[in-house]
Each structure stands twice: as structure tokens, then as C-alpha cells.
């Protein structure tokens, strides 16, 4: 028995070594792509003469809301206060069970209107539409509960403008972020979607719906997420954009061409509707051989509340992983299919073998390590491989922090930057294993997941700066 276990440990050690080499080559290539793209992007952004030109395109901001009574009023004010010439804010109340609807109606003195609907995408029944003479750019849609995707589809149907921006109700968009996000649409006629960068608002100084100063929160659970977000956005998405293979435009902040989204049938009721839509757009435009561009504006910032409790974090990560699995399985025909170019041959395999299956392989690695320890076959090779994996993890996090410092410098104090490095070292213990465990359990139960709203407890932004 011991011999068989020893043999399993050796074989798995080799498998994990090869897997790490392949995966990390992927990561390193992505980091180089991101570095290359980021350098050019920053150069362009810094010397852009057109940034505050009067020429823009009108935008409909779609805010799906479900039980958001705590933050919704602040959020609407911060959106209405955006520095952008022509936009409307469409709040879609997706059958909230709390006071969300009443609070908005009372606060903004809204009245019911008979709006002629251009129902281009099917959605659950719209019960009522409200607008205000005092806030002509604010529209409130009250509909039957159908989930976030359905709420966004309702918003698309009600919206007036050719571009729409999906915004999470618990997020704060920086004042000039729309100007930055819309730029690719003003430059390239084939742009169909642009993603913005999502940063964590926890620990920041927030006043009147505006982030005055970026900061590091006190709780470790929040700190870890800052490093995670920097890594995900700056060393991954920027790189994928460079080869027009960005598979995720975050649901918290993305700008879309309404025509393009309607042509692919709008959002689908899935767990990760944001990723599914982006993947479907790639599939549609590549299949039809239509030129298109899915861009990423890493200087367009949206601040979001990160969960500050394990329960909320677990729920979020399980949802994300289920969404990832769902989107990839739904579009599996693109996987390793050369007809889909960089999407089929690079992005899909990466997301499938690295992001989706990676946690399972990593989990098995931990299990093999434990088994090896108990049967006394823990080899030095195995420990070295784990050390190598740990250092690789740190390398990706450090790269994210470095890119942030080179390109954007949101964290002004050296103390904050040092703190981020420290967090990147610690993140590899417990936190990483915990998220791996959640992702593995999400993978095996992905079909059981609800397609409705996630249940992260929101807090009003004014309570968040401490």
C-alpha cells in the first residue's frame, strides 16, 4: 500500500511540476503582454490632447438593484454628479424585498410615466417606469424579479442612448471615468465593448459618493483582495486586451455598444452574466467574421465594496467560479478551435485549464503533500516545487503592485506600498488555500448555483472610510 502511495506521490509531483511550468509560462507571457500594453497605454493617456474635448457619445448608465436600500441613494447621487456631457441613469429595481423602490421614489420625488418601450430583448414584466421633472436624467424601472441579467436587459430596453454602461449599485465611478471609458468608441469604429478597472473602496476616504483618497483597509480579508484585484486587472486583463482576447468585462463597470449587445441577444440568465456576454460577443463576431474590438481602459476607475467577512467573500468567490464554469462550458466549442483565433487557442484554454481547473490541481497538490507527510515520503523535490509555486504567486502579486506604481500611483504613501508587498507575501498562506477550496467546491456544484442575485451584505459608503 505504502509503495503504491509513494508511486502516486512521485507521479503527481512530476505532473504538478509540468503543470506549473506550463501555467507559469502562460502567466509570464501575460505579464509581458500587460507590461507592453500598459507602457503604451500610459504614454497615450498622459499625452492625450482630446481627453476633455467636447465630443463624446451619450451614455445610458444601467444600475440593476436588488435590496440595495443602504447604498442606493448615495450611489445615484454619485452617478448624477458624473463629469460627462450627456447621460442618463436608469435604475432597475429587480423586485427588491426591502425599501429600495420606496426610498428612490420618495427621495427623488419620482412620478410614474407611460414610456414607449423599445423591447429589443425579452425580459420579465416591467411593472412601472418612473421619472422626475427635477432630475430629468434619472429613470427608475420597477420590474418583477428576474435576476441581474434580466434587470440589465430591462435597462437596455428602456435606455435611450447608443452606448450603455453597466454599473453595480454598490460602486462609485470616478468623476472622469466615463470620459476615459468612452475613448475607444470615439477612436475605433469597430469597438463593441470597453471594460474599466475595478478597485476596492474599503479603506478609502469617501465623501458624498466621491473617493477622495485611496487607502489600505484594516482587515486582512480586505487587504488581500486589493492585491488580488491589482493582479487580476493589471497583469491579466491588460495583457488579454493587447491581443483582443479579453474574456471578462466586469459587471461592475463596462461600456457596451447597445447595437452589438442586442445583436447577440442581450444578457443571459446565468451566474456570471458579465463574462458570458463577453465570451458570446467574441463568439458571434468571430463566427460572422465581423471586425470588432473589445477594449480595456485601465485608467477608467470604478470603486467597489469588497466583502469584509468570510461569509460574503465565500459567496462571492463561489459565484464567480460558477459563473466562470458556466460561461466556459456554454461556449466550449471555441476551446482549442483555431477558427476562433486567439480566443480559441489562447484565452479559452487559459481560462479552462488555468482558471477553472487550476484550483483542483492545486488542491490535489495540497492533499498529496499531506499524504506524503503522513507516509513519510515527503521528498525535497516536492518541497522545492511548493516553494517555487509560492514564489511564482508572489511574483504575480508583486508585478501587479509594480504595474500599479509605474502606471497609476493611486496609493500615495510609501507605507501603503510596503503594506501591499507584505500582504502579497502573506496572501499565499491560508487566504489562497481558502479561496482554492471555495473554487473547487464551486466547480463540483456549479450547476446547483442560483442564477439570481448574490447575497453580499452592503454598507453605506459613509461607514466605509474608517
Amino acid at each position, binding site marked *: 500500500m505504502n509503495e503504491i502511495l509513494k508511486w502516486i506521490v512521485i507521479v503527481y*509531483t*512530476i505532473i504538478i*511540476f509540468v503543470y506549473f511550468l506550463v501555467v507559469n509560462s502562460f502567466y509570464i507571457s501575460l505579464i509581458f503582454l500587460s507590461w507592453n500594453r500598459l507602457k503604451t497605454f500610459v*504614454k*497615450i493617456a*498622459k*499625452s*492625450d*490632447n*482630446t481627453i476633455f*474635448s*467636447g*465630443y463624446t457619445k451619450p451614455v445610458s448608465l444601467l444600475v440593476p438593484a436588488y435590496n440595495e436600500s443602504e447604498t442606493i441613494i448615495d450611489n445615484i447621487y454619485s452617478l448624477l454628479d458624473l463629469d460627462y456631457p450627456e447621460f442618463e441613469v436608469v435604475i432597475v429595481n429587480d423586485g427588491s424585498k426591502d425599501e429600495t423602490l420606496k426610498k428612490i421614489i420618495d427621495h427623488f420625488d419620482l412620478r410614474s*410615466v*407611460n*414610456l*414607449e418601450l423599445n423591447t429589443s430583448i425579452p425580459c420579465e414584466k416591467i411593472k412601472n417606469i418612473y*421619472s422626475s*421633472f427635477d432630475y*430629468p436624467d434619472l429613470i427608475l424601472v420597477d420590474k418583477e424579479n428576474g435576476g441581474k441579467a434580466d434587470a440589465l436587459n430591462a435597462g437596455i430596453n428602456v435606455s435611450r442612448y447608443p452606448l450603455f454602461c453597466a454599473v453595480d449599485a454598490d460602486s462609485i465611478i470616478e468623476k472622469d471615468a466615463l470620459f476615459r471609458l468612452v475613448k475607444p468608441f*470615439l*477612436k*475605433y*469604429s469597430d469597438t463593441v465593448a470597453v471594460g474599466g478597472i475595478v478597485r476596492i473602496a474599503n479603506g478609502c476616504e469617501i465623501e458624498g459618493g466621491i473617493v477622495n483618497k485611496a487607502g489600505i483597509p484594516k482587515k486582512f480579508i480586505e487587504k488581500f483582495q486589493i492585491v488580488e484585484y491589482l493582479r487580476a486587472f493589471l497583469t491579466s486583463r491588460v495583457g488579454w486586451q493587447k491581443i483582443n482576447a479579453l474574456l471578462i468585462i466586469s459587471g461592475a463597470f463596462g461600456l457596451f455598444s447597445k447595437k452589438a449587445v442586442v445583436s447577440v441577444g442581450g444578457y443571459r440568465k446565468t451566474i456570471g452574466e458579465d463574462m458570458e456576454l463577453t465570451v458570446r460577443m467574441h463568439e458571434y463576431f468571430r463566427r460572422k467574421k465581423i471586425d470588432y474590438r473589445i477594449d480595456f481602459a485601465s485608467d477608467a476607475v470604478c470603486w467597489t465594496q469588497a466583502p469584509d467577512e468570510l461569509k460574503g467573500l465565500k459567496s462571492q468567490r463561489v459565484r464567480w467560479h460558477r459563473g466562470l464554469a458556466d460561461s466556459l462550458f456554454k461556449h466550449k466549442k471555441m476551446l482549442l478551435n483555431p477558427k476562433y483565433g486567439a480566443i480559441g487557442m489562447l484565452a479559452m484554454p487559459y481560462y479552462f485549464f488555468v482558471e477553472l481547473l487550476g484550483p483542483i490541481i492545486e488542491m490535489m497538490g495540497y492533499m498529496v503533500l499531506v499524504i506524503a507527510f503522513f507516509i513519510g515520503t515527503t*521528498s*525535497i*523535490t516536492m518541497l*522545492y*516545487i511548493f*516553494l*517555487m509555486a509560492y*514564489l*511564482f504567486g*508572489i*511574483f504575480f502579486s*508583486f*508585478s501587479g*503592485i*509594480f504595474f500599479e*506604481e*509605474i502606471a497609476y*500611483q493611486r496609493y500615495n504613501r*510609501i507605507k501603503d*506600498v*510596503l503594506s501591499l*508587498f507584505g500582504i502579497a507575501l502573506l496572501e499565499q498562506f491560508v487566504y489562497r488555500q481558502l479561496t482554492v477550496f471555495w473554487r473547487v467546491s464551486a466547480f463540483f456544484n456549479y450547476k446547483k448555483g442560483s442564477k439570481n442575485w448574490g447575497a453580499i451584505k452592503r454598507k453605506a459608503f459613509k461607514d466605509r472610510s474608517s
Partner: protein
Amino acid sequence: MENNLIWITLIVIYLLLIVNISIFIATIFSKLKKKFYRYRYKNKKEKLKPILNDYLKGKTENETVLMYDEKASKTAIMISLIKEDFNLQEEKASEIFESLGYVKGLIKESHGNLSLSLIQELSEMKSAEGFPVLMKGMKSKNFEIIYQSAYALSFLPMNFTQIKEYVDGLIKSNILRDRVIEMVNNLSLNPEIYFLLLQAEERTLGKVVLLRVLEDKLSKGTDVMKKKITDYLVNVDYSLEIRIAAVVALASTQEKKYQDVLMKQYAIESAWEVRAAIAKAMHQFTQEHSEMQVDILKRMMYDENYWVRFNAGEVLARKGFLGIDALIDISINSENKEAADLAFYILDAHESVNESINSIKEEKNE
């Protein structure tokens, strides 16, 4: 085999250690460097400010300290001082940059490599001397260089030949049409020059761009110009885009004569796109809330095309008492369900109805 594995792993571990430590040091170094740079920038700016102040007052003893010296930080400081601190007028600022050798210096630098930052600096200086270099940028293979050069050029003073060359370059470029319109508009030429360009232009895109640019300027144009633009509308050989641009340009004159031209054209127009543009353009004629205008807008509410009806309804909502009365009439008395529903929707939901009602109330109070 295991030995090989150990060796490879060890090498990777050492490499990763070195790389991680290097990234850490580089990040901290970059942070410190930026702090130091900001401090040095502030100091340098404080030193140059009084010297520039003296120079602007005609004291040129320390002129050499202000002269261009290829240092990017000094150029940035000088731009900031002249444009923001002293807030000099565009012409005066260009003159200073030229006399201190900045424009020539940057042009010389650009012969090696026309970078985005050089384009931005030339754009800030707005000197006519920058024209050849930026025009060269418009012929670059790099779209960003083309785009930024084109935008920078739109703020430069130019002679007619240069304007023609520039507009020609814009029309040939891949820059999106609305941005091209903005750039041509930035030239701030008088209507006659735009009109000359329009007449010389043969491409549809060029004509549309120039007609759109003329929108805000045609009221100051001559009758000959307006007559020619009327030809663009009535001649069905021109493309729809040109004809629609002509509708908007004529409406921008706000003259009764051209309101009549548009109304006449509406009556005989077969293209719904042009009819919809005419309906929308009726909003421009604010001086004339005449019954005749409201009558024709009412007629438009029964047009076979939805967008014509919609635009007409929106304009009626903004036409004060007569317009609202017309919408109420259609909403209550019309047997045409589509028109009645649209009128009701506009009365119910459109903020301009509220604006009209408020202005009627104010008129009554007065």
C-alpha cells in the same frame, strides 16, 4: 531524473527570488524617484517663475536660463508657467515659446522620433511653425500619432493652402467622422472659408463634415452660401447624409425663409430620413411659434414613419401653448391611434412639456 528536477527547481527558485526582490526594489525606487522628481520640479518652477516674469516685462538679462535646452522637465515647467501660472493669451504664449527656442528645439527633436509627448508639447505651444512636423505625423503608420497630430493641428493658425492640405488629410484618415467634424470646427475659420472648402470638396464625407461644421456659422453667411446649401437639400442626386446635413445647416440660420424652404421640401420629400431631419430641425425656429408651423408639425404627427412623428411630437412639446394645445388635440380627438398614443406619451413623460407649461405660467404672471 529526480536530481535534474531538483536542479531545475532550485534554479527557478533562485531566479524568482532575484526577480521578486528586484521588483520590490524597483517599485520603492520608483516611488522615491517620483517624490524626488516632484520636489525638484517644484523647486525648479519656483526658480524659473520670477525670471520668466521679468522676461515678460521686457527684462532679458537672464533670458538664457529660460531658453530651450532639450531637458523634458524644463519644457514641461515652461509650458505650465506660461499656460497656467501666467495664463498668457494663445498668440502671446506661442510667441514666447518661439522666441525662447522651444518650438524649433522640439521640431529638431522630432526629426529623430515624433513621439506622443512631443506632439502634446507642440499642441500646447500652438505655433504655426509646428505645421510641417504635425502634418508629417498625420502620415505616420501609427494611428495614435496620426490621431494626436491631427488633433494638435486643429488648434494651429494656418493659411488657406495649409487648411486645404489638413482637411484633405483628415478626410483621408481613419479618424471617426464626428471627431473630424470637431477638429475642422476647432480651426474657427469664418463661414466664407468653410464654404470655399465645401465647394472644392468632392467626396461625400468631406461635404458632410463641412456642412456639419457650417451648422453654427451659417447664420453669419451670405445668401449665396445659403442658396447653394439649399441646392444640396433639394437635389436628390446628393447622398442622404449630405441632404440631412443641409437640413440641419439651413435650420441653424433660424430664418423664416429657410423654414419655408424646409416645409416645402417636407411636402414633396420621399426619403423618410430627410423628413425626420426636417421635423427635428423645426425646433431651431424658435422665433416663429406661428400657427402655420404648428400646423405642419401636426401634419408630421401623421407621417407614415415613426421617427418623423416622434421628432414632430418632441418639437411640438417645446412650442409653448400652441404646441401643447396641438398635442392635446391629437391625443383626445385623433382617430389615428399611433398619433394619439404618441401625443399622450409626450404629454405625459416629456420634460419639455413641463418647461413649456412653466413658461406659459410665467407669461401669464407677467
